[in-house]
């Protein structure tokens, strides 16, 4: 878990979600980066996203107990 309090002293480590070339540029500079080959959840089905988010919210209390 990062925070603005500590960010300026941390090594920048990146997830790149979307345009692959951003990750390529970071790789070339030796910055730790994982490219996420993102696609719309459930093929873009908004209803499914809504249902998943409802489940996430319903289970939120268990999430905070789990390790981050």
């Amino acid at each position, binding site marked *: 878990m990062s925070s603005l309090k500590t960010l300026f002293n941390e090594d920048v480590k990146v997830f790149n979600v979307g345009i692959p070339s951003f990750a390529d540029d970071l790789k070339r500079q030796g910055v730790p980066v994982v490219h996420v080959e993102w*696609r*719309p*959840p*459930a*093929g873009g*089905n908004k*209803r*499914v996203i809504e*249902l*998943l988010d*409802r*489940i996430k919210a*319903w*289970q939120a209390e*268990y999430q905070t107990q*789990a390790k981050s």
Partner: protein
Amino acid sequence: MATKINVQAANKEAISRIQTAVPVLKGLGIAKDIVPGMKKNLILHAGPPITWDRMSGPMKGAVMGALIYEGFAKTPEEAEKVAASPEIEYAPWHEHNGVGPMAGVATASMPVWIVENKTHGNRAYCTLNEGLGKVLRYGAYSEEVIARLNWMRDVLGPVLRETLEIKGEINLKSMIAQALQMGDEVHNRNRAGTSLLFRELAPALLDTSASPSDKKRVLEFINGNDHFFLNLSMPAAKAILQSAEWIDGSTILTVMCRNGTDFGIRVAGLKDRWFTAPAQVVKGLLFPGFSESDCNPDIGDSAITETCGIGGFAMAAAPAIVKFVGGSASDALNYTQKMYEITEAESTTFQIPSLDFRGSPTGINLLKVCETGILPQINTGIAHKQPGIGQVGAGLVNPPMKCFEDALEAYVETYVP
């Protein structure tokens, strides 16, 4: 329903049962004697529930052949009439604790394998594999097919039954684990499994009371059919997944299956419910002389192997499979890698050598499939859409997303306040 459900905990319980299940081959029996709810006029089939009028060619052919075999009809024309009549009942194998490959048609007098999960006590059943080409499971119903079924009932079944009485039980879990390390994925590739089985059975078989020619014929029968083991890997997978039926709140899949018309799934937390959508066309390599227009949609209960983390999920163990869609060995690796994204655990028993012996992706999570949009990957044979012609190729296929979307709706309706 406002019960306090912890989804993660429910899934953990499901995974724990799946990991600790130990399917063993106990023996054989006749379906009507041992399959729960079996009766003379009941036809069990692969896939989710379906009526005669909606069945595809191979399934109809298999039903017709089975009716002739059971004596309900003398000719195919007669069999068709009987099949459509109220005299005959149909039910999915999955609702009777079993599985069947391709059409998966089973009737009362057929011999079936008995597989028992030693850890939890549940049992699963499956018919014996007839071989390749013109066979009942591909919808063939010729005299040759019926004659073979008769021989299986009269010779093959009894000989193997006695063999297992002498041998004792055979641990299928460890046999599958070994086969996975010998180039099988135990859905489309079963050669190693069949070989291992042959080895286990042969000495005991020689000690049975069968005639020398029967013994030889039985061994030749097994030897001549690379997929003989499939009819054991499938009920083994079924017995493993059955242990997770049913767990409140769990989103782990316990069934993926097809009947040639529909694809169906079941979820551990949604007791007895089916979620179906049209079965897809398989993309693959076809045998000489066949084209895409000859192919039947996806059919069979063999997707139980994928549901269990083997079959297509262990494609990295059988790279030859992926050539079916012109891919390379690294594609096979990739397919398996993708499956880790939609599963909860890695198998503690089924390991994949080319992934550094990583456990195969186990426990398909409905929520992860929906979130990522990654559909389970299935390898399968392709049947000719007309009955009686047989296999026309093999390839890769996915379930339709709709099954998972519907299951998700049902889950939220059932559990989320």
